[in-house]
């Protein structure tokens, strides 16, 4: 009889020791949208907010400063310059066109300009206006807003790609 009491008591102590330190004090959760650095409304569906990482949010800032004039249909200052250009530059969210291009290619065309890669010279080089990190972030933003969504290709970068 006594033995059983002892056994129970020891079990309780053990359980207590195990569970005692487990308990966390009550915590407060914050709004999940607050955990994104910024959001961008999907260009095809304004109700759909795309959460952006820090790098993508920096890309968004640079895009609306530098690129929006030719790579979007509406700009902060009114009409877009896109219709003035031949060939017509792709919209930045145009996944059907841009998803097929590798990050390295995108990095090159922004850095060196269209003419250097055999494309239209109307795309100026940004290598002396933006840093490598800034261009990376613009590409990250492009990937984030791409429609259809961007899937990174499993193919390893070629030996010719810049490092």
């Amino acid at each position, binding site marked *: 009889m006594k*033995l059983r009491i002892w056994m129970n008591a020891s079990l309780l*102590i*053990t359980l207590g020791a195990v569970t005692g330190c487990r308990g966390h004090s009550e915590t407060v959760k914050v709004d999940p949208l607050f955990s994104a650095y*910024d959001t961008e409304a999907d260009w095809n569906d304004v109700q759909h907010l795309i959460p952006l990482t*820090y790098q993508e949010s920096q890309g968004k800032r640079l895009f609306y*400063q530098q690129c929006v004039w030719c790579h979007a249909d509406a700009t902060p200052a009114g009409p877009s310059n896109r219709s003035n*250009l031949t060939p017509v530059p792709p919209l930045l969210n145009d996944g059907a066109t841009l998803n097929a291009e590798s990050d390295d290619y995108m990095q090159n065309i922004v850095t060196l300009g269209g003419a250097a890669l055999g494309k239209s*010279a109307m795309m100026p080089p940004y290598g*002396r206006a*933006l840093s490598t990190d800034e261009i990376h972030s613009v590409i990250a933003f492009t990937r984030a807003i791409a429609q259809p969504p961007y899937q990174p290709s499993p193919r390893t970068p070629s030996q010719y790609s810049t490092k």
Partner: protein
Amino acid sequence: MPAEDMGKLAYRTRLLFAVSSVVFLAVLAISPFKDFRREWKQYKRSYLRFAQTRADTKKLLADYRPDIDQIWLPAMNVVDRCTTCHQGITQASLADKSVPQPFRAHPPIPHHVRDWGCTVCHRGQGPATEVAEAHESTLAWEQPILPAVFIQASCGTCHYNNLPQTPQLQRGRELLARLNCQGCHRLPGIERPAMLGPDLTNIGAKVSRAWIYKWLKEPRTILDKDGNVTVNGYETEPRMPKFRLSDPELLGLSAYLSVQTVRVLAPYKIDTRVVAAWSKNPELISQGELRFRQMFCSTCHSLAVTRAGETKLIGGDIGPELSKVGSKVNPDWLIAWLRDPQGYLPHTRMPRYGWSDEDLYKVTQYVTTKLTDSDLLASVPPLGPPTEQEIQVGRRLFLEKGCASCHSMEGLNPQKDFGPDLSAIGRKNASELEFGSANIPHNLVSYIQAKLQDPTSVNPAARMPQYNWNQSDLNAVTTALLSTKGAPATSALQNLVVPQKEAEFHPTGPFAEVYNRYKCYSCHKFNGYGGDLAPDLSYEGSRAQRQWLVDFLKNPQTLRPTLTFRMPQFNMSDKDAATLADYMTMVLQYPSANPAALDAKQFTPAMAALGKQLYEVKYQCQSCHTIGGTGGYVGPNLNNAGKWLTPAWIEAWLRDPQLLIPDTIEPRRNFTEDEVHALTAYLVTLRQDIKQQKTAAISGSRIASHEAGQ
């Protein structure tokens, strides 16, 4: 005691010892097991397993240690163990979004994590070794991780100057200043200007009591014919918030304000010949509207325009929205105001135009006839003449409600620091804040947002008025408030502060008089001082040729066709234009772009021909600039570049645009010196004046025929 009993006792004791030994062993065994199962150790082990799956395992594990990792920066009071779990934070190969947290690399920022630690920017509890303790607010820890959307607040705690990378923080700071928060609150870095809201000393001469009543109750809301709100008054005039006033309070304040006529308004008599010639003219109102448009009042003032069933405000927001101003102001006051705004409000941002009586008559007739709403004051009860008692109540309320904090009134001294000091709001602990009965999470961010959205939600007796926010502005202001953490605690931290750059521009002489009369700084910046609606003019003397400046000031033409906001038509005299142009050419110079240093005569036609070739074929500048009728409109129109720009500026600009204007979007190119000369040679040959716009000097009949001709 019998031996039998002794034996029984010994047996029991032995049993007791045996059981307790087992219990102690069990407890002892649990302790290492628990230690093994600790959260951070699990993350350590899962990083090991994760690194094995990556191609660069060796590099990822180069400085792996199985124990707690800590960044200790005694001078900054940083003890951050975050890197214990966030082990890949400096590994560039783990930057991708697909890498699971907590192993992802930190995105590239100007500060290195080993030099600064984590909690300096992200807040949270650095020494904690459990996820919840480190990230969230617990009973023992009140400063949770700063939600990512407000991260720019952390940049602002040291960088008092605005950074290009922190647009949200900058917007928040601008809003704090624009909404006159410094009227009641002490805010670091935001100077209290000479005037916040308009001086009300003479308000009785400007508006009626009924209008004051309506304004205090429901500032400037625009309804459609069915009574639906189409333009929200708090959005059109966010500087005047809603004060939740009761009817007796409205009666009192409207009575008190309507008797404020300290200076008697001397009505200006428009030349009777002008009135006689125009008052019967059926085109009077349409001509007035035309002048209103030509003078570009809309650069600062907006009007409600209904297109396709949607009402929108078109125009700038430097001055008030004017859709119904004709039903608001006394016509005599309007004429006096337009002739000399600074005579009524010395610190107004409204420029003093050079009016002819004819223009003044046409425009004021247009404003008082067309920009009206007969129903504007329909909801106001009959008020009657103000009684002495109402006036006394109003005077008391004017001080008690904090009106006097923004609106000066001769003979009244506002209470100093009417609202709480906000210079360290960003570091307040939740326990220092009053949440009242508000059903919100008890942390600083929720408190700030609840207070901004509805001050009474956290304190039913709040004196703070009601503002109207959209989500992005709310987040921007929250960011700016979170960044104000007061003076750094230690001297080592004080050394980190990047002070705000002083923006100073104190011109003297005849230029200063003209500059103040036209309020150039309302829109333009000079050496960091002034508005940012229009181009920065700090180096205008290097950029533009003197004669072009004179012509432009007398008859502004837009250089950028897509701009809705344009330089107003001031009807500037030749003398004023010459004074401004002379000063700009002499003083507002960029050191390395001296117009006198480069003679345009050195350019040969061959160089210009090469430049044209470069412009059109190699660099295709027409993608952004217009010459002739074709080209893009991202950059300015270059049709008149030869008369507009100095060759020295063009060359300096082509070499490095960002050197001259840091935030310009023209990318810096890799031109050779020969190409720079050739392009400049080409641009200086472009001398095609933009078609002459109608100037104020042209009489109304000529404008009419001109318009008809178009």
